[in-house]
């Protein structure tokens, strides 16, 4: 149920955004987040629920490499 996918905000129109999931594009509601075009979001049941922070994603991978 809590399954959610990351995608990129391609355009915004009111409360809806067009999200690109690596080629497949589908609309999602943006009521729960503050985002702009180009941001990455996590989408759950048709609603973006949070932004994905690219810098922190890279930091996690760096952290894994460093702790091993």
């Amino acid at each position, binding site marked *: *149920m*809590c*399954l*959610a996918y990351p995608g990129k905000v391609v355009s915004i129109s009111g*409360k809806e955004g067009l999200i690109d999931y690596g080629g497949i594009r589908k609309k999602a*509601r943006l*009521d*729960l*987040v*503050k985002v702009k075009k180009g941001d990455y979001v*996590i989408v*759950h*049941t*048709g*609603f973006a*629920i*949070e*932004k*994905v*922070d*690219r810098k*922190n*994603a*890279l*930091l*996690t*991978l760096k952290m*894994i*490499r460093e*702790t*091993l």
Partner: protein
Amino acid sequence: MNFRDPALIKRLSKSIASEAKGLPEMKLMEVCGSHTQAVARFGLRKLLPENVKLVSGPGCPVCVTPSSEIAEAVWIAKKGAIVTTYGDLARVPSSLGSLFEAKAGGADVRVVYSIADAGEIARKNPGEKTVHVAIGFETTAQTTAAFLNSSPPKNFLVLNCHKWFLPAMDALLASRDLKIDGYICPGHVSTLVGSNAYRFLSEKYGVPQVVAGFEPLDVMLAVLMLVRQLNKGEAKVENEYIRVVKPEGNAKALGLMGETFGVGNAEWRGLGVINGSGMPFTRRFGHFDARYALKPKVSRGADMPNGCACANVLKGKTEPKDCRLFGRACTPEKPIGPCMVSVEGACHNALRFE
């Protein structure tokens, strides 16, 4: 950016083994259906040493929705309303049968991907009532909150089965017959509540917790972080999923949740009534409440079929393979218990992948 890098996963597996060497058996629990799926699908249990046990908890909303709530949905469908719901729930039996059985009998039951799709069905059918069966924890409840706060159609109602998740994590740790040494906290519930929200559990029970994402590297790193804490005798909340989860959560979504839902008690299949886990509508949204508007009358059915071990599977007390129905009488094609019905259920995943 590859969170499925096989080389890194193998190295994490080795680090976990060396960190866990010589330690007593550790029982780590993941409490999110999407973690259950990731662990089984990527075969992560096989990458852990014998003394690190990874068990599934009550993180599958379809599994923990009690039979009485499903019976309410069937009752409403049989009275002639359009009933919308998320996938697997429609297959779970109740004292009045399942929603799909009601559909076979002529009721208008529709599976939707989003509450917004359910609202659209209501808009297109202004002469009828559309009732959305809203199950799920904070992750899904926030979408219900967002939708109800954006002028939904007047003929739209919600059968509210949402539940606050952290009280269930609290109840499991409080239960004396379970021994849980650490939690992998649900990544997407955490986007809303924030990683700080789990602190009280570590303080109260002395267990380490790690908020984790859903890729194989996320789960393996979370296990390593938990084993390291146990090795050092620490009990704190760490956040592995920093690319998505903030310490304080999502303020905008929390605001909408506060407008829409209060706190009550709720019944969980297999776990019984958990205080503080109910998510009743606030007075402002009471007129969307299908229970208030339609007053469904149902009797309590048996929550667990005869011989089904789901109640103990949901608490991490019994492994799916130890249920006598598992893989014999109970399969994904012909499920008996809810943990086999749902694609997020521990039994479904154990049989399909492990």
